[in-house]
């Protein structure tokens, strides 16, 4: 199967910096080889880029549009990425994440079907609740991460990464065919008629409350409702990708622009449109994985630190792709683990080498940057088990120079999810 464009870009080893930089007109010269690969993979495809229904709204609001996973998306608006990141934690952010793929599985066997593909205890989820999970492959590696919601026993709603859409849908379809051939009752609907907005930050709930009659204080982190928001029937999930309290709102596309405007207006301008640049800073500060960087085909959920997402019953029973590998890792411990770092010197970026204090290679950085909130360098990466404890001193090699680093607990910035007290 062909990897998506996003995946290709993210795994191009020699690429300097992060994805956003590449889509941005790169004012700074890249090494010639990189420049060619960028041109091939990116600029040549500009004309084919898809637009969300909010495209004109972004441009009208000063959005700097860049290619991202086959879509033209705002990397930032008028605020700097630094200011945008801070404003999300202080007030709130509104993101257009319509490039992500919303999907419903329906039928009385939806739950057992999905359980063959993911590590979550879907059967054990209460109706109207959900969780972060991963789609695994036969080797226990990760095909994608996804937030899944059990609407009821015969309807699962999930959202997968834009860059993984094609391979995820092909994977689900292949298994669905086999499942149905054996008499299983499941079908899917891809929500291309809907757009997805993420409203995040301390003002998310008070702002959204102005636009719906439903009492949002009764919907906790991971909770889901189908409800009327600003006059449109929406799927509301209390989740996000920033570490803040907030929501993802799946809205019929014809109502998306009106809803975005209403949210900004009801917040009295405090919730601001926020682009992919700040979204990346926010999720890194929150210690959340970016698929293609921090999680890949060959990384298991145990190595990625997502053991908590493997339901207890699933640990006992298995029954998902790659379960043998994953259950063995649970018993024996993984050989590598995802950890966080603080470091001095230049900000680490993906593929920076990690060494122990003697200069021996012990791993690689998968995401890194300067934290706008903590005003210091933060990074995530994988190191050999045994060297993964918080407080372990390491060296991070950037442009040939070793810089001091220390392994630290995740998240870097405390999460503020809305949970029952």
């Amino acid at each position, binding site marked *: 199967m062909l990897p998506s464009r996003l995946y290709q870009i993210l795994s191009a080893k020699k690429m*300097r*910096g*992060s994805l*956003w*930089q590449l889509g*941005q*007109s790169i*004012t*700074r*010269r*890249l*090494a010639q080889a990189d420049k060619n690969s960028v041109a091939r993979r990116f*600029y040549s495809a500009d004309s084919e880029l898809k637009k969300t229904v909010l495209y004109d709204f972004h441009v009208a609001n*000063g959005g700097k549009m860049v290619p991202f996973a086959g879509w033209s998306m705002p*990397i*930032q608006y*008028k*605020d*700097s*990425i*630094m*200011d945008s*990141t801070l404003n999300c934690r202080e007030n709130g952010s509104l993101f257009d994440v319509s490039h992500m793929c919303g999907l419903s599985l329906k039928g009385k066997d939806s739950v057992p079907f999905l359980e063959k593909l993911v590590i979550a205890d879907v059967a054990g989820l209460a109706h109207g609740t959900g969780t972060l999970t991963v789609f695994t492959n036969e080797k226990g590696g990760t095909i994608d991460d996804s937030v899944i919601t059990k609407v009821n026993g015969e309807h699962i709603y999930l959202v997968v990464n834009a860059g993984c859409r094609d391979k995820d849908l092909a994977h689900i379809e292949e298994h669905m065919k086999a499942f149905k051939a054996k008499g299983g009752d499941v079908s899917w609907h891809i929500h291309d008629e809907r757009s997805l907005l993420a409203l995040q930050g301390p003002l998310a709930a008070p702002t959204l409350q102005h636009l719906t009659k439903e009492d949002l204080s009764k919907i906790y982190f991971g909770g889901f409702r189908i409800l009327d928001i600003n006059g449109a029937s929406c799927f509301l999930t209390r989740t996000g990708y920033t570490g803040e309290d907030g929501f993802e709102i799946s809205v019929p596309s014809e109502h998306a622009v009106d809803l975005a405007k209403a949210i900004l207006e009801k917040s009295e301008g405090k919730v601001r449109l926020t682009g992919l*640049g700040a979204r990346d*800073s926010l999720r890194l500060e929150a210690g959340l994985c970016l698929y293609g960087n921090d999680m890949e085909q060959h990384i298991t959920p145990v190595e990625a630190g997502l053991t908590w997402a493997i339901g207890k019953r699933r640990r006992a029973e298995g029954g998902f792709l790659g379960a043998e590998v994953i259950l063995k890792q649970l018993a024996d411990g993984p050989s590598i683990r995802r950890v966080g770092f603080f470091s001095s*010197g*230049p*900000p680490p*970026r993906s593929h920076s080498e990690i060494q122990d204090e003697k200069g021996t290679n012990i791993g690689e950085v998968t995401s890194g*940057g*300067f934290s*706008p909130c903590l005003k210091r360098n933060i990074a995530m990466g994988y190191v050999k088990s045994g060297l993964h404890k918080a407080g372990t001193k390491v060296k991070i090699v950037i*442009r040939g120079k070793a810089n001091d680093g220390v392994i630290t607990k995740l998240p870097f910035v405390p999460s503020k999810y809305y949970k029952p007290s």
Partner: protein
Amino acid sequence: MASRLLWASRVASYLRVSVSHRGFASGRSDPLFVKDLKYAESHEWVKVDGKTATVGITDHAQDHLGDVVYVELPDVGHSVTQGSGFGAVESVKATSDVYSPVSGKVVQVNEELNKSPGLVNTSPYEDGWIIKVEMSDTGEVKNLMDSEKYSKFCEEEDAKH
């Protein structure tokens, strides 16, 4: 004459866009392009004073990079060659190599940038200078663009994307 006016109006519209955007980041309203400087296609500027050249990155470059959080400086005495890298500028968004617009020996580096890398954003042509080079071939400056040519170059480059 007509084409020259057209060019001027394009530059003006470009300036307005950039200035208003940058206003959010730093509240500055300096000119984007400084007349007496020479510019490289990789967006460094150089100010020539006899055999000494002061080097930094342009306002256009810092604007695209966003908040600069780290500047990697070479050692004094390091040799640089026109068109080859000598350091890097890191922003929240990205890492960028910095290329020397002239050849010679580094005689001074801007140590202030270790404490205040944001000077590259707030004062790219003055306090945010990066290195001073004793040039081995002052004739190389001829290969660089003047401000008029560079502003047009930036405009064309932005239009491409």
